[in-house]
């Protein structure tokens, strides 16, 4: 039996190494200085889906919601072995919290086809909420297996999965279709394949055609380029609000029950601090003071 998989991925600002260039003197953040990357655990999710395909057959579809720039993670998915990619992009989707995001994703997944397995990373590093996976599962009426570390068994319509979380682990058996959120310890995502990179280097969303034409002037017109890409399945489809069946009131900012009241930049307070010389004498005085104040002893 083969299995149809869909992987939900996100392009995120790399918040892991926020350097001095990103934080301004006032303590505010210059977001554009952060590189946009493939959310790390989404790569683990993609890898798990690709391994299912290798063992059992089937197709791997990758879906992302975001601005046009998010086509980058879709190309990266093709380089790593995805069969089909879809970009969900519309101004009406923007400003969505996890509730509106999961609703939009659910509508797009329904249009994309019937899937046995829905994969996503445990959480995205820009928000760290870990909410979208379970919320998509709920909206699709699917069981969820969070913190999936490995697929131990897959047979007919049942999957056995090892889960790994803080201070514990679990072996669970679940009926398909279901949704898995994948942790970073699950696998080591394969790098892009050189062959697939060459085969998919022209893969693009229509908004990228003008830039592509500059690099490939032999196509002359966007129409010629589009024809070339379509014939080779290199045209990355963009689905807008008109392409999926949705209740518009549940999209984007309008469909988001949470609102940001305020944002404070963390500036560590320069409280009173006493400099202690790193000498035997200095340390002795410090300990004496701490003993006197009942901090030590």
């Amino acid at each position, binding site marked *: 039996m083969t299995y149809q998989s869909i992987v939900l991925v996100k392009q995120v600002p790399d918040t892991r190494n926020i350097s001095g260039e990103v934080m301004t003197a006032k303590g505010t953040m210059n977001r554009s200085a952060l590189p946009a990357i493939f959310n790390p655990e989404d790569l683990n999710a993609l890898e798990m889906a690709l391994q299912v395909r290798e063992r059992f057959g089937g197709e791997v579809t990758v879906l992302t919601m975001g601005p046009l720039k998010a086509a980058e993670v879709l190309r990266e998915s093709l380089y790593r072995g995805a069969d089909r990619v879809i970009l969900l992009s519309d101004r009406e989707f923007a400003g969505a919290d996890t*509730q509106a995001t999961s609703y939009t994703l659910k509508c797009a997944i329904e249009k994309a086809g019937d899937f046995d397995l829905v994969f996503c990373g445990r959480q995205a590093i820009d928000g760290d909420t870990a909410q979208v996976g379970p919320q998509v599962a709920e909206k699709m009426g699917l*069981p969820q297996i969070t913190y999936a570390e490995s697929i131990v068994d897959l047979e007919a319509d049942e999957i056995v999965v090892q889960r790994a979380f803080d201070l514990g682990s679990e072996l669970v058996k679940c009926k398909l279709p279901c949704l898995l959120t994948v942790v970073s310890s699950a696998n080591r995502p394969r790098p892009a394949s050189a062959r697939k990179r060459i085969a998919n280097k022209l893969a693009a969303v229509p908004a990228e055609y003008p830039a592509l034409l500059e690099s490939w002037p032999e196509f002359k017109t966007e129409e010629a380029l589009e024809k070339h890409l379509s014939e080779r399945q290199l045209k990355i489809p963009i689905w807008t609000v008109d392409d999926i069946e949705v209740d518009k009131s549940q999209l984007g900012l309008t469909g988001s029950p949470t609102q940001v009241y305020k944002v404070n930049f963390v500036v560590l307070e320069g409280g009173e601090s006493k400099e202690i010389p*790193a000498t035997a004498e200095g340390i002795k005085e410090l300990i004496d003071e701490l003993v006197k104040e009942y901090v030590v002893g």
Partner: protein
Amino acid sequence: MTESKDIWVFIEQEEGHISDVSLELLAKGQELAQTLESQVWGLLCGHQIEELGESAIQCGADRVLVVDHPELTLYRTLPYARVAIDLIRQHQPYIFLIGATPLGRDLAPRIASAVQVGLTADCTDLQIGDYTSKKEKQEYKNLLYQIRPAFGGNIIATIVNPKTRPQMATVRPGVMQANTPDASRKGEIEKFDPSFESSDFALEVLSREIREPSVNLKDAPVIVAAGGGVQGADEFHLVEELAHILGGEVGASRAAVDAGLVSREHQIGQTGTTVRPRLYIAAGISGAIQHSTGMDKSNKIIAINTDPDAPIFKVAHYKIVGDVAEVLPLLIRTLREKAK
């Protein structure tokens, strides 16, 4: 009918033991309930767990809904979500809080999606306050301010759910303080008989292993924490020795954990444990916000770093510019002499 202002706390239990974060939330819930002039309800699910209701009352619940059923023996998302969703629909609480544990982060989004309300993850503070929506030009009184770090801890966002009820949040363990159990506290215990559908049992737990934490950072009076400036096993041994002399525990920054000096359970900061010991010694820790916000409420902080401009010195009470390899032995020797 006036809207309920009651605050619900999901009481997480594992093998008949209530998790610390649930007790912390009951205490915080009581504090919020004073402002709202409302009650704190505990939602307790499991099997043969009835006596835990009394513990919840002693720690701050005014009323406990006990849902005792064999299908709830081990946590599974769907049956637990079914119970919570049914009860929320029936009682319409104002606020619903869950610990940001692996269980809470699995369950909360499922519930929030089903009852179609907003959910804020990993809050580090909760307050009650007013909010004016600029877009709708409408003022909302006494909303729950859900306060959480974002963008790697570099910003703190205050989130509100103006319209949907309950206002839901998961809260990080260890950032709030539990009440000492008060045996004289009175409350009501109410039983609820759940009803399930066969689809709730799509998942079966074949086996489950829960490890005891090997370190208790939250209750340690003293923590000596190692950072990237601690080089190799010998220097790390000095950190352990100092912690031992002071009767404390060993903590670590992410850099020390990533370097393999110590296990992740020792990590302090936003992605680790939040601590507030009597004395915190930061050995070779640079003090990225990610770490500092997990320890800056410590009573006294000593920071040792070779870089005089290291951010850790901004939160330190005592600043020692120097190498841990030299300063730690001095501290150890001085304390040893004192003890004689």
